[in-house]
């Protein structure tokens, strides 16, 4: 019957799409000021690859997406600053003071920070993020057109 076979083929293509999504890559829409000037405040369409997180080939300086430790339904995009065992020095509250703190990233966790530290909720607020929450590495900007291409490295 025509209806049944088209339903089966829809299910098949969705399964294939899901497998590609989980193991290869996906797209994500981000917005907000925490990653200025690398990412736009009004919105970006980014390409995310999932191979690096699964094989453990992430390095400090990569922009990653991860499930927020405070709101499990939200996916957050920040830059990886330190892997487990690294010593990280960060400015605690850059709007009010210059006080710095240094910590060692615990085992199984990573330290993430936004590029615009004055308006970013990141590891300085919710602590080191368990590696299991990382969902992928952002490697290409699709939209806005003027930013099309690979992402800029961490601004000095």
């Amino acid at each position: 019957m025509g209806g049944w076979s088209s339903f089966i083929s829809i299910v098949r293509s969705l399964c294939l799409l899901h497998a590609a999504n989980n193991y290869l890559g996906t797209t994500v829409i981000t917005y907000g000021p925490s990653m200025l000037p690398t990412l736009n405040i009004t919105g970006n369409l980014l390409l995310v690859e999932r191979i690096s997180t699964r094989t453990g080939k992430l390095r400090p300086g990569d922009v990653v997406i991860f499930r927020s430790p405070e709101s499990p339904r939200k996916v957050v995009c920040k830059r990886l600053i330190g892997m487990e065992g690294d010593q990280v020095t960060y400015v605690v509250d850059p709007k009010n003071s210059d006080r710095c703190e240094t910590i060692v990233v615990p085992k199984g966790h990573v330290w993430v920070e936004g590029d615009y530290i004055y308006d970013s909720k990141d590891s300085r607020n919710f602590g080191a993020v368990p590696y299991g929450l990382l969902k992928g590495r952002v490697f290409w900007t699709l939209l806005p057109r003027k930013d099309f291409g690979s992402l800029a490295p961490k601004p000095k």
Partner: protein
Amino acid sequence: MRQWTSIAKETIARASIVVKFLCFLHVTDSYLLSSNHVLGPSMLPTLNITGDVVLVEHLSHRIGKLGSGDLVLIRSPLDPKKTVTKRIVAMEGDKVTFSLDPIRNHSSRSLVVPKGHVWIQGDNLYVSCDSRHFGPVPYGLIEGKVFLRASMAT
């Protein structure tokens, strides 16, 4: 030449059936139901030390219907390659009282589970490495809820 193209076509057709079936299996595994082998002493007497096959459903944690008392499969915050089985003792906002060393001393500590986290403990408190050691665990690390043990009790 024509033989090789027809053989190649048939191989591709058969391989694509296998790939499609694996994709379907993977989708069911991650969104509906999967079976897992769990072992270790930290969940005695609920689960065997030598190993149990359990059925895990992957719907409840996505729709937020998990609560304290549920047995869950959770990715370890210490080693992201390992998945551990523990019981949820407290959800976010609950106050939890626990004793770090139930054998040696009877002192206990209390804390409130922060937003977006859960407190997990093994049923066998004496040998379990759980939230009493590595703190509350983000809800996003939960992978599924154990609801059935599929092996024979020995």
